[in-house]
């Protein structure tokens, strides 16, 4: 837990006030423009700064400022390799589809991605499948993002555990639903610009401060390398984490907590010096009570190791928490955090295994978790080069922004800005959180999610008012990142329901007034439903975010990309690509719903398999069902040059809306 400075509270309130002001300004503009196009697409008039920041901020979700720093803290420099494809992510994700997608959307008057697919392939079924898929993935993602937003507020304001999450959720939901529903797309874009500036400013100011605190990067690397082999156990149950450090050369592999499988067993330590170093573990047989439940605390294990004749001189045992906060353990005893929490093993598991990590392991790949598994093997390295640059192209939220810019020059400038944005955010984050490992040395795997908040409150917060404000800005950065993703997704669902399903499928002659009311109401209702679902959120937050991002790409990238660039792409090919990619992603991630691991076939991330299946099916089925209808090829791949023909383009747009296409 961390203290909340007045500067943090004031900065947060000022930030939220700015968001509301932008929503109000946007709402005033909404009244002067055509409602549907303005509410969902900003009248296709985004300038380069707005396009760049809304694109980058939407792509940077809460994971960029919570999960990513946590991974850097845990695994070190290998995260520079993990994130490396961001060197081309900006130019690829905007430049490959941007101009062509914008042109096709203008030709048809499309304001959503399902609109584009429906018109390009002249298929209502395709449009409806696209809308359904967007709603499915987006709702999953929104639950995770709402949870992230609520947790950030709970942690930042140090709210009590029993109602802090609910309060955080309500504050987050009310803020984001209000400004999204009231202001529409343009409010979302403007707040994205604000949020993007907050992110860049915060990181740029933090970088030199942190490096100076660590004594320079050379010194930071040296301190990391000289750190003795360390093992941090983090066992479910709370406040029982132990830090075990070797006093000299390491002569054991790690520690095993074992359940003795009987009642009333005493705590026992076993360590056999005759076993080879690589297989030698400190085995801790936990004590059990009369019902066979484990009853040893972190403190019991600490004392047992220290009193062991051979282990005592070899290892130093401590707790990762350096505060003396009083907490209540599961038996209701008031105690200092990190001292007496009971170590509980999962009922289906008889042992928990932890390994020592040498300091120099964070200076190289592949990185190891405290359970010993490699973090970034070759298959994942290849997959993640696809993940950020290629998968990034296939997100409907970012594609939508490519339909909203003003002209080619705007896109060109935005590509340059986004490339700069990614370079100024992601690489510096690696430097900052490698240094954080020296400045805050002993966070366990679970607490490393709080690395950003701890850096800003413990490290920067102690340096005076100016730095407290900087800390507050940085705490606002992950909040801003979550909000910028959530607002886009909320609009995407309501546009899918109002535009794609109601207006274009059920009632094409719906009045403008009804569309307006339906749009406001849908955004609010979707937000409320997601808020309710997020009151009991799933634990695997980051997995959901990865699942939905990969799922979007596997479903949408092929039909959109081949539809824009290949004349031979047919509606059957597009539908096969979407269904194939969607099925692979859901299938490969299905085991995670039941507590298992996702399927990484041949060591590759499911994302790569989803893309391969989607593109393979799209190509083969189109070849088998081709050629594509001549009128579609002529419309989308050949120039219509006369005014008469251009008028007929508009006519076709009207007939499409009338449902006759």
């Amino acid at each position, binding site marked *: 837990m961390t203290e909340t400075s007045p500067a943090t509270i004031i900065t947060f309130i000022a930030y939220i006030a700015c968001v509301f002001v932008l929503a109000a300004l946007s709402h005033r503009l909404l009244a002067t423009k*055509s*409602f*549907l*196009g303005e509410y969902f*697409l900003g009248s*296709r008039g985004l300038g380069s700064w707005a396009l760049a920041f809304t694109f980058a901020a939407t792509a940077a979700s809460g994971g960029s400022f919570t999960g990513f720093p946590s991974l850097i803290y845990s695994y070190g420099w290998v995260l*520079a*390799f993990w994130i*490396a494809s961001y*060197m*081309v992510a900006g*130019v*690829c994700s905007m*430049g*490959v*589809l941007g*101009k*062509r997608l*914008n*042109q096709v*959307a*203008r030709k048809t008057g499309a304001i959503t991605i399902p609109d584009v697919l429906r018109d390009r392939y002249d298929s209502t079924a395709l449009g409806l499948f696209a809308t359904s898929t967007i709603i499915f993935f987006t709702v999953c993602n929104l639950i995770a993002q709402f949870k992230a937003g609520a947790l950030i507020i709970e942690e930042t304001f140090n709210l009590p555990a029993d109602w802090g999450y609910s309060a955080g959720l309500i504050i987050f939901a009310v803020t984001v639903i209000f400004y999204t529903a009231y202001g529409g797309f343009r409010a979302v874009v403007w707040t994205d610009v604000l949020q993007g500036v907050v992110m860049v400013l915060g990181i740029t100011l933090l970088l030199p401060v942190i490096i100076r605190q660590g004594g320079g*990067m050379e010194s*930071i*690397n040296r301190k990391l*390398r000289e750190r003795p082999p360390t093992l941090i156990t983090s066992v479910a149950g709370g406040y029982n984490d132990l830090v075990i450090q070797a006093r000299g050369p390491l002569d054991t592999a790690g520690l095993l907590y074992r359940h003795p499988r009987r009642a009333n067993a005493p705590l026992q330590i076993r360590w056999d010096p005759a076993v080879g170093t690589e297989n030698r573990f400190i085995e801790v047989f936990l004590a059990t009570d009369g019902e066979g439940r484990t009853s040893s605390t972190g403190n019991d294990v600490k004392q047992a190791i220290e009193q062991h004749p051979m282990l005592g001189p070899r290892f130093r045992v401590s707790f990762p928490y350096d505060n003396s906060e009083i907490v209540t353990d599961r038996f209701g005893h008031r105690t200092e955090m990190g001292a007496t929490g009971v170590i509980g093993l999962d009922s289906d598991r008889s042992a928990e295994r932890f390994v020592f990590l040498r300091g*120099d392991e964070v*200076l*190289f*790949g*592949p990185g190891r978790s405290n359970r010993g598994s*490699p973090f970034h*093997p*070759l298959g994942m*390295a*290849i997959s993640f*080069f696809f993940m950020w*640059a290629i998968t990034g192209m296939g997100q409907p939220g970012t594609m939508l922004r490519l339909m909203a810019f003003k*002209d*080619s*020059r705007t896109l*060109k*400038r935005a*590509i*340059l800005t986004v490339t700069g944005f990614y*370079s100024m955010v992601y690489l510096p984050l690696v430097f900052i959180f490698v240094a954080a490992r020296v400045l805050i040395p002993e966070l366990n795997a679970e607490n490393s999610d709080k690395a950003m908040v701890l850096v800003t409150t413990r490290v920067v917060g102690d340096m005076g008012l100016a730095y407290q404000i900087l800390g507050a800005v940085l705490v606002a950065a992950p909040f801003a990142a979550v909000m910028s993703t959530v607002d886009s997704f909320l609009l995407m669902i309501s546009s899918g329901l109002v*535009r794609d399903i109601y207006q274009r499928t059920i009632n094409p002659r719906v009045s403008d007034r009804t569309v307006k009311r339906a749009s406001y109401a849908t955004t609010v209702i979707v937000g409320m439903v997601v808020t309710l679902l997020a009151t009991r959120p799933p634990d695997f937050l980051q997995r959901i975010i990865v699942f939905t991002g990969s799922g979007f790409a596997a479903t949408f990238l092929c039909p959109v990309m081949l539809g*824009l*660039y290949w004349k031979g792409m047919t509606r059957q090919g597009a539908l096969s690509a979407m269904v194939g990619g969607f099925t692979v992603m859901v299938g490969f991630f299905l085991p995670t719903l039941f507590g298992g691991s996702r399927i990484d076939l041949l060591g590759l991330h499911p994302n790569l398999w989803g893309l391969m299946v989607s593109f393979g099916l799209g190509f083969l089925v189109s070849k088998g069902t081709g050629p594509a209808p001549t009128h579609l090829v002529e419309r*989308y*791949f*050949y*120039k*219509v*040059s006369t*005014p008469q*023909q251009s008028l007929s383009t*508009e006519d076709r747009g*009207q007939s499409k*809306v009338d449902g006759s296409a």
Partner: protein
Amino acid sequence: MIDPVFRNSLRECLFLLLLWLACCLYTVTYCYLGGYLVHEPHPDATGPSIGKLVGPLTAFDRHPQSLTTPLGLGVPDWVFYGVITPWVAAVVITILFCLYFFAEDDLSPPGLERDEPGTSHD
């Protein structure tokens, strides 16, 4: 007549995919071979070597003491040459791409000054 926006966009698309591929091949190869303490055995390896050119992967295992930090920046050598150098190169290529390769095409449908999305039914 082929739509010039389609033609230019396709050309730019192919260029960018090649740029991505080049960055991917260089960075993944360099970082994997030059930056890992432990290399997993190749799944297809039948002996100690995975090929005459590459040799056994374990030959690339880094010794921690071999780490250097080029230019005194405090960045490990494999990150400096494997990530930061190509990153800088990619940014330069992106700038050149935008300045000299990217065509500023007119995206409005012919005959329309400016389309308003959704106007046909508002």
